[in-house]
């Protein structure tokens, strides 16, 4: 298995190959190019697993494979591969989910008789290739480039049904909002190059290591705008954070994700649940050595994470369409990961990233199969009673919901609980911000439990409330198989890192993820980060006590939320209970008017400014140019009047000219003196 890492580039290139095949020969292939996609992702998945095994055996790989721009006496810009536990794990996640989504697409797109399939599978192939390219990137520039390519693919795939009005504008919005975030990220990349001279994540001149040494005073790096090193690193961290917030749909820049549901559901599952949205969090994890040095940035990340978790969870409570609920749930769950990263819980956040990828992809695919059954009607109030007719989908969906809500044996519980645990102990260790974030995170657990089970009960339980719900459209194996696989994963993924069990019952050695993430380069592994983070941990009633209390509280809240949903919605004829919320209802319906103010900024502020500028440009700047030309035209027309056509006038002018000339000469020549 030693040489397997040499094949790492193949993981990225296989999907790219499928992109080319689908684009070029998609029309002529059966299933519109899907087989190429499935084959490629399957191949990548196997390679990824092999890489995972090799990496867990302690190998790492950090090689520059392509020089993009070779600076003669300036720094070279290169592409390279960095395979370490973090990226190996992410490789497996991305390739697995991409493979399952490709299979699911057979059911969702092909059986549904969709047209333009080559374009769809080409988009998926390009997306998978770009995402994998981003995961294995060894420097910030390559990461940024694939970050943007992923944004492009999400634009193409959201806007797949471009013949209607909805998807293209949703795609445009998604691209623009993430582009706004990427603007800050690009400044961050350029700032890192300018400050450290290199943007590598690992290796001798890795910029986190350089930053660490600079702070320790070993050597100086050039800072800008007259800031000290600590302040400048914070600014650079925040700049890169801009891109992360944009791509992972965190608080200010989250409005594009719910609209991105306009795209086909497999796309939502792959892109807007598991992989692309994870890119932001993965990036922070990738350069965590840099973030760990700046406490203010970590605090900001934690705050954004906590607030987004609560903020999105509240909005998820009142949504009608199943995919909208899942969209807000995604935003909320990524809030948790950011909270984990902000609170110094590097392993916790990565763990939640992994488990969330599985159960959220599962939920989306489940929703997809429900949508197939309901002939593309996503409104939960027209569903109900699908439990008996779609058992496989139901049980997979249930497993995913339990994981999402964070009920004990399921994956969600372990990862979310560890995130909250890390936040709690570091909060108690003397940083009130983390406590506030912890409180928000905890409150969000309740809402998460509530909206998850509200969704489950409305969709699957009770009496079917519409004709299509009574006899739903059947789904074939290609939908059920991925659901089953993900269902199992959502249930068992938690076993990888059962920290509470280890702490409470003292069974050492079962936190495999911690050990796994420790096997990286010395500057990239988990305990190095643990040393770097500026938090110390405080406990109430010893370590075991805090674990127990934390787990109990979060489980209790989740069950409470689920219970409330059970009471309200698990009745044969559930009815909307939103009037109880009173005025809050309208606020929640309109998602705190976030969409409105962002759209207002674009159309209400920027467009009028550009129109005014345009008028100014036409009127004044162009006016000046035309003015100058009109002056010469005016002078011309005046001069023309001298040519009256009458000969005597010319004779008179001639005589006057002569006399004037004579006078002039006389004066100069002194004739008159």
């Amino acid at each position, binding site marked *: 298995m030693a040489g397997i890492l040499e094949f790492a580039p193949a993981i990225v290139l296989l999907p790219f190959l499928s992109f080319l095949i689908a684009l070029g020969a998609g029309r002529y292939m059966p299933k519109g190019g899907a087989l190429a996609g499935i084959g490629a992702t399957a191949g990548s998945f196997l390679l990824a697993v092999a890489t995972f095994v090799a990496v867990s055996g302690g190998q790492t790989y950090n090689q520059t494979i392509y020089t993009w721009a070779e600076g003669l006496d300036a720094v070279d810009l290169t592409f390279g591969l960095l395979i370490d536990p973090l990226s190996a794990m992410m490789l497996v996640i991305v390739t697995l989910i991409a493979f399952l989504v490709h299979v699911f697409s057979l059911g969702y797109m092909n059986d549904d008789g969709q047209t333009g399939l080559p374009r769809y599978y080409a988009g998926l192939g390009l997306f998978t290739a770009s995402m994998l390219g981003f995961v294995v990137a060894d420097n910030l520039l390559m990461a940024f480039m694939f970050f943007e390519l992923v944004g492009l693919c999400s634009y193409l795939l959201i806007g797949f049904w471009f013949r209607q009005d909805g998807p293209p504008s949703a795609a445009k919005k998604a691209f623009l909002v993430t582009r706004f975030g990427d603007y800050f990220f690009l400044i961050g990349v350029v700032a890192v190059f300018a400050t450290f001279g290199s943007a590598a994540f690992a290796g001798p001149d890795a910029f986190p290591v350089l930053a660490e040494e600079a702070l320790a005073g070993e050597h100086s790096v050039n800072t800008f705008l007259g800031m000290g090193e600590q302040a400048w690193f914070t600014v650079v961290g925040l700049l890169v954070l801009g891109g992360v917030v944009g791509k992972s749909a965190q608080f200010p820049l989250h409005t594009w994700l719910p609209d991105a549901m306009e795209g086909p559901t497999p796309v939502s599952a792959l892109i807007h649940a598991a992989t692309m949205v994870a890119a932001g969090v993965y990036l922070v994890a990738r350069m965590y050595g840099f973030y760990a040095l700046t406490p203010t940035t970590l605090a900001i990340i934690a705050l954004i994470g906590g607030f987004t978790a609560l903020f999105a969870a509240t909005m998820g409570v009142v949504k009608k369409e199943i995919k909208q609920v899942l969209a807000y749930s995604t935003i909320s769950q990524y809030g948790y990961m950011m909270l984990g990263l902000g609170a110094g819980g590097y392993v916790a956040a990565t763990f939640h990233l992994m488990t969330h990828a599985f159960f959220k992809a599962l939920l989306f695919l489940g929703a997809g199969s429900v949508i197939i059954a309901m002939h593309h009607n996503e409104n939960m109030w027209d569903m109900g009673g699908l439990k008996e007719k779609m058992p496989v989908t139901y049980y997979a969906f249930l497993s995913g919901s339990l994981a999402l809500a964070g009920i004990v044996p399921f994956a969600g519980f372990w990862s979310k609980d560890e995130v909250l645990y890390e936040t709690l102990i570091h909060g108690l260790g003397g940083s009130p911000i983390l406590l506030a974030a912890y409180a928000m995170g905890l409150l969000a657990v309740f809402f998460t439990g509530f909206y998850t089970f509200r969704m489950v009960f409305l969709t699957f339980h009770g009496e079917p409330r519409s004709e299509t719900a009574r006899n739903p459209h059947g789904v074939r194996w290609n939908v059920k198989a991925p659901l089953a696989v993900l269902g199992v994963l959502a249930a068992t993924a938690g076993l990888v890192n059962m920290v509470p069990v280890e702490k409470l019952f003292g069974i050492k050695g079962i936190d495999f993820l911690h050990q796994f993430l420790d096997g990286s380069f010395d500057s990239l592994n988990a305990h190095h980060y643990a040393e770097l983070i500026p938090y110390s941990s405080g406990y109430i009633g010893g370590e075991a006590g805090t674990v127990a209390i934390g787990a109990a509280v979060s489980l209790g809240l989740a069950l409470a939320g689920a219970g409330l949903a059970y009471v309200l919605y698990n009745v044969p004829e559930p009815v909307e209970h939103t009037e109880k919320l009173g005025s809050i209802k309208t606020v929640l319906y309109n998602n705190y008017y976030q969409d409105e103010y962002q759209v207002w900024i674009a159309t209400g502020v920027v467009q009028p400014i550009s129109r005014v500028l345009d008028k100014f440009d036409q009127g004044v700047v162009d006016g000046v140019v035309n003015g100058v030309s009109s002056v010469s035209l005016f002078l011309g027309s005046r001069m023309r009047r001298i040519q009256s056509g009458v000969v005597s006038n010319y*004779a*008179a002018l001639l*005589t*006057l000219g002569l*006399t004037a000339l*004579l*006078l002039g000469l*006389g004066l100069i020549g002194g*004739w008159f003196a």
Partner: protein
Amino acid sequence: MTTKPQLKLGSHLVPGLAAVALFVVMAVVFLGASFPNPQGFAEGANLTASIGYTMFNLDFGSVPGESMLVAFEIIDLVLVAALAGAVLLARREGESGQMRTILTDGGRELKRTLFDDEEGDH
């Protein structure tokens, strides 16, 4: 009753002032200039003969003068050209210049040229 010619004064004479102004300037200049006495010609010198001789580059004349043979020839060409030009300008279109015979067609040709031409001429 016949009216005697009056001097027509009025604003149309204003351009004339330019001429008067020119005269004033020239007069002032000439008055200001000082000329030595003219050399004049020798007593009884035969001027006309000298002019004649200078015309043909012969210098027998009693009074010196530059030879003007070339000028003499050129002025001849100018006169011929002026004559031809004048005839050309004065000729009406359409006349081929053949002799106008005595009008034996009862004046039809003349009427046509005079009156029909009127319309054509405008």
